[in-house]
């Protein structure tokens, strides 16, 4: 059986799947990051309605499995007559999921900036937006870099869930190959290595950034 699949053919297919894992991860990073910023600003705005809304948003996406979120987007929307492809459902689901987590991570970073920084900048007559832009966010950003990149590793691994709604990324490619070759151990071993190769550089980068920004205070 294996004779039909040379190791190079296997690797080639897995690489094709990995490409979609990377694409999905990138979309989740970028769109999730932008949406996360919006949620963050709502969350720390101090305005009651915005705080409640953003809190609810974060709780919903943190308190339910990513898989359920994908199911609801994928099956729920098609029941409502909106035709959603697996690709779109995965991209939207991961974006929402990522935005909720990033907003919460970043909220912690904003709140880690000492109260004295708010008071000093307020005393200098800066308004809320100016305080955020010139004093609080630059400091929060330094604190945020390492945990953010660290969370992105989680996002890369979370894209595997998209395989369940039929999106052909790395994991889905792996299961199809495993079914065809009857070599699940080999195939999923390769899949695991591929995930590791994607994630490990990110982890290293997170550590590097942590040292770098720690040193530059």
């Amino acid at each position, binding site marked *: 059986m294996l004779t039909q699949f040379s190791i190079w053919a296997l690797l080639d297919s897995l690489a094709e799947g990995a490409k979609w894992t990377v694409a999905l991860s990138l979309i989740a990073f970028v769109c999730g990051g932008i949406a996360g910023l919006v949620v963050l600003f709502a969350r720390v705005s101090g305005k009651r309605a915005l705080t409640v809304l953003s809190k609810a948003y974060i709780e919903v996406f943190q308190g339910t499995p990513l898989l359920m979120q994908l199911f609801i987007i994928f099956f729920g929307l098609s029941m409502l007559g909106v035709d959603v492809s697996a690709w779109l459902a995965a991209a939207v689901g991961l974006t929402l999921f990522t935005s909720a987590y990033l907003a919460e991570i970043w909220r912690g970073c904003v709140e880690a900036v000492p109260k*004295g*920084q708010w008071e000093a900048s307020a005393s200098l*007559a800066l308004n809320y937006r*100016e305080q955020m832009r*010139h004093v609080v966010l630059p400091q929060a950003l330094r604190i945020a870099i390492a945990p953010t990149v660290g969370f992105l590793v989680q996002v890369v691994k979370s894209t595997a869930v998209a395989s369940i709604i039929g999106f052909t990324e790395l994991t889905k490619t792996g299961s199809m190959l495993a079914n065809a070759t009857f070599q699940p151990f080999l195939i999923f071993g390769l899949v695991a290595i591929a995930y590791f190769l994607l994630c490990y550089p990110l982890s290293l980068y997170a550590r590097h950034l942590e040292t770098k920004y720690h040193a530059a*205070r």
Partner: protein
Amino acid sequence: MPLVKLRGVHKTFGSNHVLKGIDLDVEAGDVVALIGRSGSGKSTLLRTINGLESIDRGELVVDGVALDDGFGDLRTLRQKVGMVFQQFNLFPHLTVGENVMLALKVVKKTAHAEAGDIAKEMLLKVGLAEKFSAYPDQLSGGQQQRVAIARALAMRPRVLLCDEITSALDPELVNEVLAVVRQLAEEGMTLIMVTHEMRFAREVGNKLIFMHHGLIHESGVPRQLFAEPGTPELANFIGAVS
């Protein structure tokens, strides 16, 4: 018309009635020392004057800008009132020069070059011109506090609030900060300071205010009050701290 005027100012934190009706007049050029035990409301009083604490009742006017019941034109008020904190609160991600220039550029829309000149002038005044490009964590506590003073002065405030500005300093660094404050007082800057430095309050201040249980318990000329406190509470307090 006094520069700073408070009438019947009340402030409550939850069930804690911190300010119970404060009347206070500060004239231009006054150097006011606020003293009292911790919890007497002296820091809260100071913080109401630039709107860091809203007031629940009463009236606050600084140089013609009124702030009633916690609302008013905070931005205008705060350009007239500078503040220096116990913990310095310099912006750690900015250089000393950028710390001093930030509000000039952002709030007053001063051009970069001009803001730089003002920052250099202010740093020269506090004796730290050569630290323009240093970061706050490269400075000693006393130097950081002097930068904080320069940062507040750069906005050309009408009155400078000092909230226990030497309390977080090592003893050997206290004098360099007090020397700067003394110099400001001599130049005619209006100062309101919460302080534990009784000798400094006596020597530099022209008004002493003793806070007790959320009220101004006694006020007057420092030398006289220190020599002959009018109430047993002030006498006790002076006895306890000196």
